[in-house]
């Protein structure tokens, strides 16, 4: 699921831009070192393939619904983590620019959520560890399903985390986690099955297309550790949601400690005032909270309500907003009327 610009604060968006940008630079460097000559057109075409593959659906047995290939895991199996990360980043960029899916500010988050986890967590730590060198058969299928689920659950968990840290949505952490993780469990199983089906077909039809030996296998001794880590990562989301459902206060309290905000409804003004004070101090959430609008506007009847509420401010805001909207529309129409000819022109 794509994170949207409308839900994200500049601080969170900027932080993940930095992380994803750094990963892109790192992967670009790694790709230059591999010297696989045909990698450039292969990456471009496989990115396009991911788009095209989403046009066809398969039926999910027993449910009546249908699913399709998501992308991250199969790309990593075909290209290796570094190239796959770049391809996922490019796919997400095109989605953001042309489909308005996600957004520019949220692009860093989306690249991290949907690119990093399949390429650098699900594939090396789970898929390779479980499938060993098998590309075909039950073992590889299981590995694909587990890896896809883990990758998507981690991504979904980070969507929740990013939304929470941004503080624009009011959704409580626990409820949001409980909503996202089961949905992505289902999506992950579908994605894993689709990945396994395609990989096993290719393994039979043209095994040399799957680059088995390009990447150094995981060192044997590390493997148990990595499997343990992967299982822990897989359980993490489930445990977090269980924790959230049984001890909502505890989790939200810890969120409050971490991010300087709490999602419980607090009827009394005292807590809010304290919170507002804390929020002003936490640099991570700039401007978050209750803005004291228009310093001058006198608190006429608003004593019981919000610090910023005053009938005058609100009314002038509404009137001015409508006028501005109308002005924007008129400007748009006027510019349109003045411009000489239609787009495309004489083609």
């Amino acid at each position, binding site marked *: 699921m794509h994170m*949207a*610009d*409308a839900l994200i*604060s500049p601080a969170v*968006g900027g932080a993940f831009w930095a992380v994803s940008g750094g990963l*892109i630079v790192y992967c*670009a460097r790694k790709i230059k070192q591999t010297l696989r000559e045909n990698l450039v057109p*292969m*990456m*471009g*075409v*496989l990115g*396009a393939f991911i*788009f*095209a*593959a989403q046009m*066809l*659906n*398969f*039926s999910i047995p027993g449910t009546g619904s249908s699913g399709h*290939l998501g992308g991250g895991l199969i790309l990593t199996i075909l290209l290796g983590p570094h190239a796959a990360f*770049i*391809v996922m*980043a*490019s796919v997400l960029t095109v989605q*953001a*620019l*042309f*489909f308005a899916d996600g957004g*520019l*500010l949220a692009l860093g988050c989306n690249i991290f959520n949907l690119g990093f986890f399949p390429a650098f967590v699900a594939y090396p730590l789970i898929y390779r560890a479980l499938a060993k060198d098998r590309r075909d058969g039950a073992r590889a299928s299981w590995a694909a399903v587990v890896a896809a689920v883990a990758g998507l659950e981690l991504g979904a968990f980070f969507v929740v985390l990013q939304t929470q840290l941004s*503080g624009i*949505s009011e959704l409580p952490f626990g409820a949001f986690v409980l909503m996202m993780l089961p949905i992505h469990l289902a999506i992950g199983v579908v994605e894993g*099955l*689709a990945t396994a*089906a395609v990989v096993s*077909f*290719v393994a039979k*039809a043209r095994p040399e297309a799957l680059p088995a030996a390009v990447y150094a296998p995981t060192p044997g001794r590390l493997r148990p550790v990595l499997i343990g880590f992967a299982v822990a990562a897989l359980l993490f989301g489930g445990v977090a949601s269980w924790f959230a459902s049984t001890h909502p206060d505890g989790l939200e309290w810890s969120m409050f400690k971490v991010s300087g905000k709490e999602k419980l409804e607090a009827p009394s003004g005292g807590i809010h005032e304290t919170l507002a004070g804390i929020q002003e101090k936490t640099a991570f959430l700039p401007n978050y*909270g209750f*803005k004291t609008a*228009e310093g001058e506007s006198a608190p006429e*009847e608003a004593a019981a*309500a*919000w610090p910023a*509420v005053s009938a005058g*401010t*609100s009314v002038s805001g509404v009137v*001015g*907003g409508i006028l*501005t909207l109308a*002005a*924007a529309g008129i*400007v748009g129409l006027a*510019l*349109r009327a003045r*411009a000489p*000819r*239609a787009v495309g022109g004489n*083609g």
Partner: protein
Amino acid sequence: MESATWPDIGRMDDWARGDSPAHRLDARAKAVATLAFIVVVMSFPRREVSALVPFLLYPVVLTSVSRIPIGEIFRKMLVASPFAVFVGMFNPLLDRQPAAVVGTIVISGGWLSFASILLRFVLTVWAALALVGCTGIYRLVAGLERLGLPRVFAVQLLFLYRYLFVIANEGARMKRGVDARAGGKKALTLRVYGSLIGHLLLRSMDRAERVHRAMLARGYEGRVATLDRSRFRADDGFFVFGCLTAFGVARAWNLSAAIGRLVLGAAA
């Protein structure tokens, strides 16, 4: 991201081929201004609505000057809206603190922040679509590369975009074949799906091989040459400077409220 939106991408290329003052601006100037726009819009407190309205001017002007069809922008927005709307619609249920009074109607903070999310969604998505619409992917990527985008990623974006249509057509042909033979059944079994997509994958990979050989034959040495030799002119500097100033002013003062006070004051 469904198949229904496919032809749209090609049409956005048509938009970018037009000529207008907005088209003539350097891609770097537009990219920087648009990014600044999105960051400023998202830096408002979450219940802000009226102060965000003046920001509509930026995408409106960009869209109108470059004569991008507005209906199609709105249709794209609608297709992309579910996640933001879905997450935002809980705000009115969760935050019921009274936050604004208009006449006798009390508006809760949740409705304000929901309205704010919707407005932000429109602003950010519109600005991004307008940027691509009046710049086009080739000039945009060339501009971004000059701003420091790693070359491998720039090349990847251009290749992906170039082959999107080719591979998508292949996928569409397959889908037509499936529809013609499926006897009314909508979805495939996993087995059939696996071999169909597998074939699509193998064909795509074969095409990549052919493309690569053709590229080498034409002297490819690691970068995609574009004919765009756009220079950063004084106009571009003014554009960026003007945009940043305007965003700053609109961020610091609630212009809507100021206009409203002015009008109400004059009427009284």
